[in-house]
Each structure stands twice: as C-alpha cells, then as structure tokens.
C-alpha cells in the first residue's frame, strides 16, 4: 500500500496538483495583468519604468528603518524565504526533478549548505509563528488564511528535512508525506495569498510605476 500510495503521489497526484497550480496561476496572473488602467491624461512628471524598477529593488534588497518588531519580521521573513528558495532550487534531488520536467538542470549546492539553509528556514518559520501568536497586534491582524499558508509552507520544509535525515519514519513514508505536502501547497497557492510568489514583483513594479509617473521621489 505504501508503495502504491507513493506511486500515485509521484504520478497522478503530481499531475493533478501541477495542473491546478499552473491553470490557477496562469489564469490569476494574466487576468490581473489584463485588468489594465485607464490611460492617464495628465502629463508624465517622471518615468514609469525607472520608478517601477527602483521600487522593485528597494522593497527587495534595502532594509528600511524599522521598529525592533518590524526588523524581526523582516529579517526572519527573509531568512525563511532565502532558505526555502535555496533548498527548493539547489538540492540535487530537486534539480533532478526540474530536469525531468523542464528538460534542463543546473549545478547543485553542497549538502552542508542545503542543511544550513533548511534549518535556518525552519527556525525562522517557527519564530515567526511564535511572534504572530505572542504579539497582540500581529495576532489581531491574523486570520485563518495566515495560519493555513504558514502550515502549507512549513510542512514541505519539515518533511523534506526529515526525509534527508530519515527522521521518525521510513523513507517510503517520508517521501510520500513530503510529496503530499508539496502537492497540497501547489493546489492551494493560486487561490490564497501564496499567489504572491508570482504577483509580488508585479505589485512592486506597479506601485513604483504609479509614483514614478507622478514624479514622486521614493
């Protein structure tokens, strides 16, 4: 049964999850882009592109002056995102998966680097959840979707780390759980705030472009 479940997860399950993910994401992103805006009749006071690109850069790579609480959220948030990105795209086993799906691959990072990235990422996520629960403002701002998306992002990291180290369960079980958690993430992300994995840079460009057009110095 274990073997058959794993086979389903690697076969039909992955096909369903990928189909939902790609269909949902391509629909949402394209629909978003095609919403369009009325042509502004005002004279431009600055470049849309310059403003857009500057905001993309500033919001991504420049740490603003923040309160300690804000600083913690930003630093832990970056740690999680970078760790997630590194483990997803630079673990040898994952590259083998991308090679099978896209037809091309790239060099992997050493296992030690992956381990550090994964541990930092997991630790950051736990710290962020704890902070969300303890901090009154954050707790008030959080709704069900925040906790759902936290769990859906956390599970692939946790099961993946357990799988590499064979912690707790057998390899078959851990691999099945890991793939299942990723499939759940793929299925849910187009319909929740997880869609920001594609829309975040578009949104940053858009905000910057609006300000750039008006000539606002950011």
């Amino acid at each position, binding site marked *: *049964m274990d*073997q*058959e479940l*794993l*086979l389903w997860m*690697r*076969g*039909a399950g*992955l*096909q369903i999850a*990928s*189909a*939902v*993910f*790609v*269909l*949902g*994401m*391509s*629909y*949402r*992103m*394209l*629909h978003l882009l*095609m*919403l369009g805006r009325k042509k502004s009749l005002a004279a431009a006071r600055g470049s849309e592109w310059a403003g857009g690109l500057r905001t993309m850069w500033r919001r991504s790579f420049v740490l603003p002056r923040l309160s300690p609480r804000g600083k913690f959220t930003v630093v832990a948030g970056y740690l999680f995102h970078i760790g997630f990105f590194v483990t997803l795209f630079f*673990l*040898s*086993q*994952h590259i*083998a*998966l991308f*090679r*099978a*799906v*896209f*037809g091309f691959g790239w060099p*992997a990072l*050493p*296992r030690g680097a*992956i381990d550090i990235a994964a541990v930092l990422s997991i630790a950051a996520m736990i710290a962020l959840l704890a902070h969300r629960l303890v901090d009154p403002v954050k707790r008030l701002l959080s709704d069900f979707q925040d906790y759902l998306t936290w769990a859906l992002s956390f599970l692939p990291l946790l099961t993946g780390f357990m799988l590499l180290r*064979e912690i707790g369960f*057998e*390899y*078959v079980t851990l*691999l099945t759980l890991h793939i299942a958690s990723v499939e759940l993430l793929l299925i849910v992300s187009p319909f929740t705030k997880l869609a920001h994995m594609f829309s975040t840079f578009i949104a940053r460009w858009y905000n910057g472009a609006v300000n750039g057009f008006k000539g606002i110095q950011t």
Partner: protein
Amino acid sequence: MKEQETLEQRLSGQGVSRRAFLKFCAAMATMMALPPSSASAIATALAKAKRPSVIWLSFQECTGCTESLTRSHSPTLESLIFDMISLDYHHTLQAASGFAAEQARDDAMKAFYGQYLLLVDGSIPLKDGGVYSTIAGRTNLDMLEEAAKGAAAIIAVGSCAAFGGLPNAQPNPTGAVPVSDIVKDKLIVNISGCPPIPAVITGVLAHYLTFGELPALDELGRPKAFYGETIHDRCYRRPFYDQGKFAKTFDDEGARNGWCLYELGCKGPTTHNACATTKWNGGAGFPIEAGHGCIGCSEPKFWDAGSFYTPLSAPAADVTTVAQAAAVIGAGAAIALSAVDRAKKRKAQQAREKLTVEDLKGS
C-alpha cells in the same frame, strides 16, 4: 532418498562435516537476527528434522526463481538443505512427466494432508476463467485452491506469486493476481524478489524446520529478518548519498568514484530486501556493486513504478504535457473572462446617462 533419514545423517552421507553444518546454523541464526544461543537450537532441531513434503506449483512465471535457487552457487549447504526437503512435485526439477507427475502431486497431497508445505511461484490468471495458464488441462486457480486446502503453510516465492509481478503489470492482459488474493484462510509467507535471494528461501525453510512455525512477517507478509531494512539503509554507497554526491551518468567521474546512484533511478531507498547484506552469487556482490541502481524488484507494482532510470524525486508520469495544457487553458480562461469584463464595462459606459448643468438646475 530414505524418508526416515535425518538431515544430519543425510549431510554426513554427502561429505558435509558437523563443523560445516554448525557454521551454516550460526549463519542462519545471524541472518535471521536471532540471538546467538539459537544457533545450537537450530543445529539440534535441524539435525533431527525429518524431510517435510513440499509441493511446488509453478504458474505464470519465468522459472527464474527456480534458477536462482538451483544455479546460483552450487553445491552449497543451502542447496543441500534444499535437497533435504522432499520435493514431491516441481515441474522443472522432477523426473516424472505427464500423468505420473500429476499422480505424484495427488499422492503427496493425500499422504501429507495438513502437513505439507506449499511453495508457489508465478501469478495466477483469473480473466476468461483462468484459461491463460493451465497444467494438465486444469487452470492454475483450480490447482492452487485444491493444493492450498491441505497445506500447513504457503510460501509465495518470487514477486509474481507474492504481489503479481510482471504478469500483473499494466495492462495485465490475463487478469493475473498474487496467491494472497486467492487464498485467504492460510498463513502465506511472501518471499518477494525477481528473483528472490536463495538464502532467504532456505532461511525460511530452516526456521520452519527448527521452530515448527514460520518467521515473523512484515505488513506485506515478508519475513522481517530479511525484509526489515531497505537496500538504501545497508548500502555501502550510503555515505555518498548523505554527502549529496551522485553519479549523473553510468560512465561519468561520479560513477567511476562509486558515488550514489539515486539520480540514475536507484530504488534502494524504498526497497526492502537483504541484497546489500546477504548478496548474490555466493557473496560476490549485488546489483549496486555492479554499478546499476536497485530496480525495487521485491516491492509490489515495481514494473509500474515509472522507469527504472527515473530518480525517486522525479515524477513517475508525464507532468510536462499536463502543465502545458493547463497553462493554455488558464491563459485562455483569463483572456476570455477579461474580454467579458471589458464588454460589461463598455456596456455600462454606453448606458450611462449624461448629467448636464441644466439637469442640476432643474432639480
């Protein structure tokens, strides 16, 4: 062969010393993870054991399981142990043929009713009344049901008998099923593998002769002593897996350095068998030592688990085409709905009544 002869007498008659016999018993005890003291218990029990009657039924199979047993490394103590059972019926090995062969099976089943061991290799076809495999005009299903009734225990040898194997692979044209799908009221030991390791079969037989019962089994009916760990857990290339060092092709530097074969499709992590410890061909090695990944032959549905050369982390089905189709449908839906949105907007704009200064003055 004299029926009343004990194993020890028989072995000494064949020139096997008591010392060699005891070494074999110790090896069996070790292999089955029994306490060291049980070696002498095995020796005592085996020395006194009478030859049990064994009926071996071969159904939809390739004879590879029998080949594995008889030709792997001969003659050894294992093969002599195999001589020590009274193999009353076996297509490939028996001298009798035709009516005499079937008579021998009938006689053994009557004489040892309730006591004989039934060994089965090959799957059983059920489609179209089971006509795809018959022996002496009888279907495999008919013969298995009859033989199972009087069996003390059933040992399904090889992946076909244990899980359906190759005949059961998609699209399964003969409706092949494993023994466990047909016999529900008897203890069945599954010795899976394509073929299974000879020492595992003799180990199970030795356990049965020694303790009068079959060894502890896992949830798939396989003896835990041999199928308790994965190939990956006991693989000598495991350190390379842990370091993330993988061979990318069968002849690259990694392959020459003996790195892990995971990315070349090795199914070792998900396969339970004793190959990495018991090894093959008299201990000469096992497939991974020969530079090829494990194909997972001792697990159910291994023929349908995608290519032998697809890594476990890669999809077992075509995800690329599905994703491309999904992208086209998603983009199409976005374009269509955007067009609907715009049409609605245009309509609303056209339907809007213009408010003039006169209108305001009038009110």
